[in-house]
Every structure is written in C-alpha cells, then in structure tokens.
C-alpha cells in the first residue's frame, strides 16, 4: 500500500481525515479499524464534506467520533443505525455513507434492521466490529459468539453463532467481506474497494475486545484470530485513478472491475475461489466455520446490481435540497384533484 503522501488526490492532508481522541481501551481492535478507515478515505481521496458516519450504540458505535472529524456523524440508538442510514441516503443520494456497528448492535437488537438493509442494497459501507461480546456493557456474550467460546467468568456459550457474512449473502448484499482488525493490508484493500462499490458493502471485521474477550478460550481473541484466519484469496485493489498494471500467471488470479472502474485483482491461494458465485461462497463459509476457522477476504461480490436509489428512480439531485418549485405541484394540480372529488 502506498504510504500516505503529504496530500491526497483532492489535495487534502491526512490530518483532515483524523477524528477525536479515542475513549476506547488501549489495544481495542476497534481503534485499529478506525485507523484503516482513515487511511482508506485519505488514499481514495474522498471528500469528507460528503461523507456521513452512522452508528448504533456500543464501544464500536462510539468509534465514528474517532475518524473523519470533519464529516457529519450520527450516533443513533442501539441496533437501529440501518434505518437512520437509509433515511439519510434517501434524502441525499450523493452522500457516501459508512455505518459502524458491533456484533451486539447488529446481531442482537439490530438483526431485524440488518436483514432488511441487506435486502435493499442501499449504497452504504456497513462494518461490524466483531468481538463476540457486548463490550460497553461489560462483556456478555453476543450472538456472534462461537459455540463453546468461554467468558472470563467461565460461562460457556451454547448457542450457535450468527454468521453475519453468510446472512448478508443469503439476503442479497452485493459486497460481503470478512477481515481481522490486525490484518492491515487485507482490511485496507477491502475498505478501499468498498468505496468503489455502488450498493451495500457488509464487512465483518474480527476486532478483539482486550478487556473482556481476549483471553484463552475465547474464539474472538487476537491469538485465536491470528491462528484461525483463512483467507480465500490475496487481494490487490487498483483504484480507477491509478493505472498500475499488475500481472499474474494466467489462471492464477481473477480480475473484478468495480462500479467506478477500479479493479480488484484476486490472486488464488491453494484452493480455487470465485467470489462472484453466491452458492459456493455460502458453502465456503460453512465449511470453514465447521473447521473452527473463519474465511477472510472478499467473500462475495455482485458488482452491478441496481442499488436501492436506482430502483426508486429518484432524481439525480439530492431530494433534501430540491427547490419548492419542484416539490410543490401547481394550483392546477390541486384543482384537478378537487374536481375529481366533487
């Protein structure tokens, strides 16, 4: 990855992409993710004034305050960020929305809104900072906790985990990935690619909770994540504005062209993997988790399905700022309606 230059392609300094000082625990995986987000938005040259940061409630949901300090943010209520984000995008389709949630915020109270967000293919980057527990309320199990995972208190989880990636694919999300807060390269590539996708991006990022769920016996600890991470491919992202040509031995890699012309070069690892094949993507997820591992990387992508706003066929300008002349029909319209009622 190109290390940040003084200014990016739209002439902004890295500083502008930073946020407030974190109030999360030192070493919290969430902080690492915030840093990657800062890098990605800087490197892609995204205009912060057009970005909206959304979140629910939780340690993870606090993090939007710690990146992109010059963008609008909305820290909503627990588990309901998807609806707020949907409203914001309906109001202004030009916005770039990034939503940060937690595994509790998404998997427990928020699973309903999550399901329906995925169905709609709303243009939004939805990130689950997944630590398998409720950090902010002191470490209870969340619905992504794995079978048999153990809390510090010794309590063992005996409910099957919700695989948010499998769920997202099942429900129709068009860009689904999984990563690990400790994997800088992979996470950054996925984030930059997300910014080139038009539709719902769902990234489940394993993000250990150092305070409540980083111990031996936890399946969401740094140690466990490092040992059980099973990348489905090696990702290189080439943004539309850089024309680097990477070439691999034929057949050894797959190229996916994104909505904005950027390219994803996916180098095959031992096993063949095609992230555009929905059914096999699900299969791979299931098989990997059966082995007690988790597949990471770009799990599934459908680059060109219509997004929600296209389906709704709204005008090109933001609805939020349409002039009254375009939002209030004339007197003749009212008269026509009245005549119909006489």
């Amino acid at each position: 990855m190109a290390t940040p230059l003084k200014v990016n392609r739209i002439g902004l300094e890295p500083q502008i992409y930073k946020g407030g000082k974190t109030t999360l625990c030192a070493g919290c995986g969430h902080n690492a993710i915030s840093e990657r987000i800062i890098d990605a938005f800087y490197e892609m040259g995204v205009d912060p004034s057009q970005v909206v940061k959304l979140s629910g409630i939780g340690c993870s949901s606090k993090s939007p305050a710690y990146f992109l300090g010059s963008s609008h943010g909305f820290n909503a209520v627990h588990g309901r960020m998807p609806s707020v984000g949907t409203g914001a995008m309906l109001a202004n389709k030009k916005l770039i929305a990034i939503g940060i949630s937690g595994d509790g915020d998404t998997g427990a109270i928020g699973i309903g809104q999550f399901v329906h967000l995925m169905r709609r293919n709303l243009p939004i980057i939805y990130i689950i900072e997944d630590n398998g527990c409720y950090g902010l309320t002191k470490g209870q199990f969340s619905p992504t906790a794995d079978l048999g995972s153990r809390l510090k208190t010794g309590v063992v989880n005996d409910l099957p985990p919700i695989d948010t990636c499998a769920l997202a694919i099942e429900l129709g999300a068009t860009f689904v990935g999984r990563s690990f807060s400790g994997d800088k390269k992979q996470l950054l590539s996925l984030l930059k690619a997300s910014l080139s996708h038009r539709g719902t991006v769902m990234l489940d990022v394993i993000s250990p909770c150092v305070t409540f769920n980083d111990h031996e016996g936890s399946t969401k600890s740094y140690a466990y994540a490092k040992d059980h991470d099973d990348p489905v491919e090696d990702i290189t992202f080439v943004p539309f504005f850089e024309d680097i040509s990477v070439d691999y031995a034929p057949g050894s890699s797959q190229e996916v062209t994104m909505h904005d012309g950027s390219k994803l070069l996916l180098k095959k690892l031992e096993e063949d993997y095609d992230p555009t094949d929905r059914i096999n993507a699900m299969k791979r997820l299931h098989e990997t988790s059966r082995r007690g591992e988790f597949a990471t990387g770009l799990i599934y992508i459908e680059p060109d399905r219509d997004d929600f706003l296209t389906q709704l066929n709204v005008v090109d300008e933001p609805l939020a700022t349409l002039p009254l002349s375009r939002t209030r029909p004339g007197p003749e319209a009212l008269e026509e309606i009245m005549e119909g009622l006489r």
Partner: protein
Amino acid sequence: MSPTDLAVKEQQAAPNTQRVVNDFSIQIATVNGSGSQTANMVLLRSVLLMGVPVSGKNMFPSNIAGLPTWYTIRASKRHYIARKKEVDFLVAMNPETAKEDVLTLEPGSAVVYDEPLKLNTLRNDLVFYPVPFDTLVKPVCPDAKLRRLVRNMIYPGILAKLLGIDPVLMEKALAKQLGKKAKAVVLNAGALKAGFEYAEATFKKQDPYFIEPMNETAGKILIEGNAAAAIGCMMAGVTVVAWYPITPSSSLCESLIGYLKKYRIDKETGKATFAVVQAEDEIASLGMVIGASWAGARSMTATAGPGISLMGEFAGLAYYAETPAVIFDVQRVGPSTGLPTRTAQGDLIQAAFLSHGDTKHIMLIPCSVEESYTMAMQAFDLAEQFQTPIFVMMDLDLGMNNWMSDAFTYPTTPINRGKMLTAEKLKELGSWGRYRDVDGDGIPYRTIPGDGLPAYFTRGSGHNDRGQYSERPDDYVENMDRLARKFETAREHVPAPVVQNNPKAKIGLIGFGTSHFATEESRDQLVEEFKVETSYFRLRAYPFNNQLAAFIDAHERIYVIEQNRDAQMRQLMKLELTPEQQTKLRSVLHYNGLPIDARSITDDVLAQEGFEVAKKTAARVSAGTAGGE
C-alpha cells in the same frame, strides 16, 4: 325536560303523516367484501349531487370479508355532518345482523330488506319494503360470478325511488365512482335501474323520509381525511416517506403514493422528486424519517397506536438530538390491538410524553378534512422550525370516513425550513454551536450533510452546545433547560384554538378533533331544546397557549369533550391550569369505538347540569348495545 320526553317529542315531530325532508339517516347493513362500499358511495354522492349536505360513516369489522358492516348516510339540511345515533331508514342486507338491526330501530323508521329474511314479522311499528334481490339481479347480470357484487347496486336504485333522488344524478354518481371501467358502469347502471323500477312498480311510499333538491353543496367535495392529509403532505413538499401498513393509517400513505406518482415525477427526466419506502416496521419507519430529516429532507411517516408505542425510543432520540420528523397518528381504539377498525382519541398522553426521561412533544389536532390538509403542511414547517417531532393526531373517523367539505385552497405562503445555518449567518454569528441558543427562543441553528458548512456529530447521549459528548452536570442542565425553553416558544407558534365566545353563556365546551361536528350540533340542541347557551373552544394543538386559561376564566363550568376513557386531554390541561381553573373542568367522555354524536354530548352535559336525564353510564351502554349502531 327529560330525554324520555325528548324522545317522545322527536317521535311526534315525525309522525308518519308528516314529511321529514333532508334531515334523516340511512343505515345500510351488509357483509364486508360484498362490494357494498361502491353502492354506498353512489348513494352518498347522489345525495350530494341533489345539493343536500351529507356525510357517511363506515362501521366495518377488523377482517377482510364475510363479517357484518354498517354504513350510515346522513342527510342534513342544517349541515350536520357528525354521526347521528338514531337510524331512520334501514337497508338490511345481512342475515346475520338483520334481526338485531331491526329490533334496535326507533318506531316509525323504514326498512328495505332482502325479502327472504322476512323481517316484517319482527315489528309492526315500522315501515317495511321487502325486495327480492336475487330475482332482480339475475336478468341484470348474466355472469353468475359477478352477481354477488352487482346485487348490492340494486338498493341505491330502490332508495332513489323511495326517497326521491334523481336517478340521473345517481347514474352520474355511479359513473364518478367507477371512473373508466365502462363495462362495470353498464352492469351497475342496469342494477340501479332495476331497483328503481321495481320500487316504482311495487311500493307505495309509507315512510316520511324525503330527499329534496337544495343548493347547499355547490363546489363541495367528498374526501377522506387520510387523502386530505396526503394532499397536504405533497403540497408541503414532502420528499421522503417511510411507513408500515396499519389500519387506519395505511390509506394516508397509499393515497399519498398515488398523488406523488401523478404530480411529483419530473417531466424531463421521468424521475421521482420523492422516495417512498414501505419499511419493515414502525421503528424502522421513524428511523428512516429521522435519518432523512437529519440529512435535510422533509420526511414523514403515518401510523396508529401500536406503531406509536413502538416509536418511543426513536421519538426520544429525535427530541434530544433535535431532528425534525412528522408523524401522523391516525388513532384507533386501544389499548393494545384493541378495535383496529373503530375510532378513538386515546393516544394523546402517550404521544405527548412519548419516550423515557424528560421528553415532551408537540401535537397538532385537525378536526376536519380541510384541517387535515392545512395542518399537514403546518406540521412540516413546525418540525423544521422547532427541529423536533410533530405528531398530527387524527383518528379513524376523520381518516377513513368520507366527509363533505369546501374545496381546498392552494397554499399562499412558501414553506418554512426553520433555522438552517447559511454562510452569511455563520459569518454574522462568528462561531457556531449546533445546540447554542443564540436567539433566546431555545432554537439553535443546524447544518445538514453535504451543505459544505461546519459538520457536527449528532448523538442521543449527553452533549454540550457544540454537540460534543459531555457528561458534565452543567452542560446537561443547560441543554435540558434550553429544550424546555424551546417547548415554551412552541406555544405561540402551533395552530391557535378556534374560540366562539357566547356572552350569554355560563358554560364553555372544549372539544378537539372529530368531536367538533358533534359538538357544534349539540350546542344547537342545547340552546334550541333546552335554552342552554354555550361558548365553544376548539383546541387545535398541544402545548396550549394562553387563550385556554382566558376561556376557562370567562365561564363558570367547562365541559371537555373527548373520545377516550381517561379524559386524557383534560389531564394534559390539569398539568398547566391554575387550581381555580381546574375546578371548572368536567368531562364528557365517549369511548365505545363509534364516532361521537351530538345527542350523547347533549345528554351528558344536561345530566351534569342537573337536568333530569338518564345516567351517563346508561347513555354509554345504550350507545353500546347495538353492535350495528
């Protein structure tokens, strides 16, 4: 004078010999899903076209087909459009309820019924007109499958003849009702004709009820409150609508969708200047509305009690984070699922204090279809001016029944988007804080994403006047006190009450919403039948302004008329009135799920005024006994 006397008097007033013209009610008892709705609308509109003031009330069950439905049409030369409790003319099409329907009639009433039901054996103090509908429909409608529906178009024909409605006007009404469906028009016109001719050939007019031409309805429209509100929303420039279906609010969003598709598609591009989303539930609906309003859209949702109960958390967020939102609550009978197809004004307290902590909300309360239209527009302005949710408290009676009204007038003023920060304003202010009260009215300036002005972080957690996270006691208290100040400011900006001060009156009536028309009629009854003079104060919003106190001070006794059990509006008043003022408050409560009627108000007021009338409960239960009422 006691109500028994009264009843007698009424009866004498209408002996079979003496004509009752343009002042009676017709009740049609059918089975829902049998297409009777069209027939009833044709009847209703034909009366309107006769120039006679008219209103229609639909009492339908909470299922889709096969259960009893009652439709009441009231003709009133005096423009009374509230429900009339007594039925003068019954059309009994439903075997299931026919017996009870007939038994609860006042003596002297008339009954058109399906011959096989043999209702004439039930009483001898009524006028009966048996009609062999099945025989009549066959020739008219060869296609057996369609008969069930066409059959019902016969009774309007019968009534046209019996009541003296011009069949030509009735055909016009039919055409209006069915619009382009040519084939259907022909079929149904045939049924109308068959009914008319059968009555002509068979019946000798024995009842006293007549519709005679008047000139009282020129230019008037017939519309449901939900459609009226929808028109208002469109004219207010609504851009984002998120909703979840629920009776009785669904038709508000559904008619809005219809209007938007017709009038809000850009000519050039063919693209929509609006976005409507059927959300997964009410929580998501309000969440979308909040997100959209926060990002600068004019956004709304519509729901009923159960939806309101689910919106608590988001309503509190909008109050505290100060995002606009327009929420229509088309009230139905609660608690819980209650009676989904019956009317009530029972969500007032819940809406006023929706959410935990010290949360308070503004409510607008339209009484008519016309106010449904105008207040819809005001709601969007107020939501943006005060950056807070506005609850428009309608009810099923207003939203789903057809009301006669003057045509709506086109808005003369532009919309008010409230305190949106601009570059100039920013320069003028020097520095900007999202929650800073620079004007002393408690209302801060806001920016929206993408406007290039300073961004801020919106949150439902504690914040200082710059919107930064804060747990400091002083920041919290200052912010909460400002919010209270903002609410005070609202008093003088919400729709003012409509007051009719009667110098001769010791008694004041306070009504709101759909109680209005019954209240006006009751005032006439009180003065004409009992020489009881009243003043009238019609509430249109919460919080109240100072006129309320003034009105109460000017009268000895105040009757607060409500359609709920717990006197909710009176309770809200108690919170603000002086003890002296409170001593004057009394309640008139009507909560059996049927629209309130003038006679119930009159009897109740009289009873409390010490007139010798039956006990209130009695009155209530009597209002109750006839499920078909």
